[in-house]
């Protein structure tokens, strides 16, 4: 299953819920403000680092770029994808769940 998360933990606990409930082997894509959670040292990043190995983690490149976040700032294990990559993840997984 592909899970999309679009908010930081300071705005909504959706990342927390996602990481708690997503089944092992799920793909998790951070979009919109949620890409901030992939920055090394952030609260979200610490949670994501704990789930590494259980889930495959992705961040939407255009949302990183428009927020001035460089790939070098991200924790290890995050794959940056573009919108075509988002579509490819949606095609690969038979269900897409948005944590809103």
């Amino acid at each position, binding site marked *: 299953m592909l899970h999309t998360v679009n908010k930081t933990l300071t705005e909504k606990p959706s990342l927390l819920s996602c990481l708690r409930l997503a089944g092992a082997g799920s793909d998790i894509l951070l*979009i919109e403000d949620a890409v901030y959670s992939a920055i090394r040292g952030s609260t979200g990043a610490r949670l994501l680092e704990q789930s590494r190995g259980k889930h495959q983690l992705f961040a939407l490149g*255009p949302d990183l770029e428009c927020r001035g976040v460089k790939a070098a700032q991200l924790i290890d294990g995050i794959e940056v994808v573009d*919108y075509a990559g*988002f*579509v490819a993840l949606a095609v690969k997984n038979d269900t897409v769940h*948005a944590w809103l």
Partner: protein
Amino acid sequence: MKFNILINEGPYTHQASDTAFQFASAVFESGHEVVRVFFYHDGVHNATRLGAPPVDDRNVIARWVKLAEDYNIDMAVCVAASLRRGVLSDESASQSGRAIANLDQHFKVAGFGHFIEGAIIADRTVVFGD
């Protein structure tokens, strides 16, 4: 592969409509198809024909209209959500005794069942909101 898209937020305040538009564009560029876009809750504000954003800003509504024209996408607003928010078709305006109709002609008015039908027709349903 066929995609069905649900948008729960309006333009400009939130990024959901922008993300959904970029995703939908990428769906077609990747050789797939968006069969339906259903606008729900505040998402119905994406369907007003009266939006007049500054010329140096993106026109979210016009962008959806262009994509729908280019790829023959079925775009619909939820009937209850749009009536509540004053996004009215000619028929809705007439029935509600309102002088102005503002629903762009590229959008139809439909019940939530239309979205569910889209989910049945499509291989994937993707939701965008806040």
